[in-house]
């Protein structure tokens, strides 16, 4: 018997969707007693229907038998750390690792911008014509040694910013290529006492 030959509830509808629903209801044991008897009669004589039921049962069993992933130790340690912080402070808890990962994307852009600015600044200072200082108008009140000192201070500040940028870049690289950043700071303690409630299906 082809799938669409199984009549609907009212005996007139014959769509595949209703057929699938009947098969699923049979597999889920959701048919009434009368419906189950009628379905069983058809099942006994219809090889194609049996194949459909077998497939539905196989898929359902496979899904139910799918291994339930257990939290790895690293995640358990992170969750325990969150519980401890909740106990200790009772305040809002910040997701350190996920926040850092979200920040990492921005950091690349920020670090690149800083490095670009530093490069442009150093380039501008180093290419500055030597006689520019002599063009300073006397009415500004700045002497040659004062201007030289200011230039040295600017170069010093740029060097500090450059060093900070280098560290930021290294940190970003570490976060991008070493995805376990932050886990080392979490105590590796696992409490094995789990309260697993058995699941009862409807």
């Amino acid at each position, binding site marked *: 018997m082809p799938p669409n030959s199984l009549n609907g509830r009212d005996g007139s509808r014959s769509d595949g*969707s209703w057929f*699938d*629903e009947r098969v*699923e209801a049979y597999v889920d044991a959701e048919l009434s007693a009368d419906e189950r008897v009628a379905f069983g009669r058809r099942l006994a004589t219809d090889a194609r229907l049996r*194949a459909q039921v*077998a*497939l*539905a049962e*196989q*898929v*359902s069993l*496979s*899904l*139910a038998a*799918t*291994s*339930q*992933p*257990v*939290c*790895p130790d*690293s*995640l*358990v340690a*992170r*969750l325990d750390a*969150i*519980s401890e912080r*909740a*106990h200790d402070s*009772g305040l*809002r*808890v*910040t*997701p350190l*690792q*996920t926040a850092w*990962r979200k920040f990492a994307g921005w950091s690349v852009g920020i670090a690149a911008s800083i490095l670009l600015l530093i490069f442009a600044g150093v380039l501008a200072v180093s290419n500055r014509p030597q006689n520019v200082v002599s063009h300073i108008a006397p009415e500004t009140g700045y002497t040659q040694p004062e201007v030289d000192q200011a230039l040295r201070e600017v170069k010093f500040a740029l060097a500090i910013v450059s060093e900070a940028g280098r560290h930021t870049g290294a940190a970003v690289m570490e976060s991008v290529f070493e*995805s376990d950043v932050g886990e080392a700071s979490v105590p590796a303690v696992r*409490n094995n*006492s*789990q*309260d*697993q*409630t058995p*699941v*009862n*299906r*409807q």
Partner: protein
Amino acid sequence: MDSTEFEHTVRRYRDRVYGFAVHFLGDRREAEDVTQEVFIRLWNHHHNLDGVSAQAWLFRVARNSCIDVYRHTRLQRSVVSDDEAGMERVAADSQSPDQWTEQQIVEEHLQTALDSLSEPQRSIVILREIQGLKYDEICQALQLPMATVKVYLHRGRRTLRKQLSEIYAAQLT
């Protein structure tokens, strides 16, 4: 919910939330981040959860987080590739390596089929078929009417059967 109840809730539901995220995303590392985020949100909203089912709330937030992650990271995913926990289960469950490998292949096919489902079919199939939630629990978690849940579950199952029919055909004949 005080901090003691929070700790109890974490211990009770962490594996289930993690399992949902693993099956939804097909990526264990992303599932870890989602699980952590879900429980952080739980604590940060614990003042507003009186009278709310913790399980329903957790699965709802987990699903929303998974959707966010899924939208932002469309990477190649594999559940089997770094299944260290699975390797541990082999010893624990006393499965032979062949049995374990066969199970992994089946689960890989199942995961691929699950990945092909759209929302909310995927969430509903995972919650019903893998997590074993009752219909009313799924309705509560996803805030959907019963009829809608059943329709989506039916469509999801039908899609899974189509996806898996060729794989299971050899076993069934």
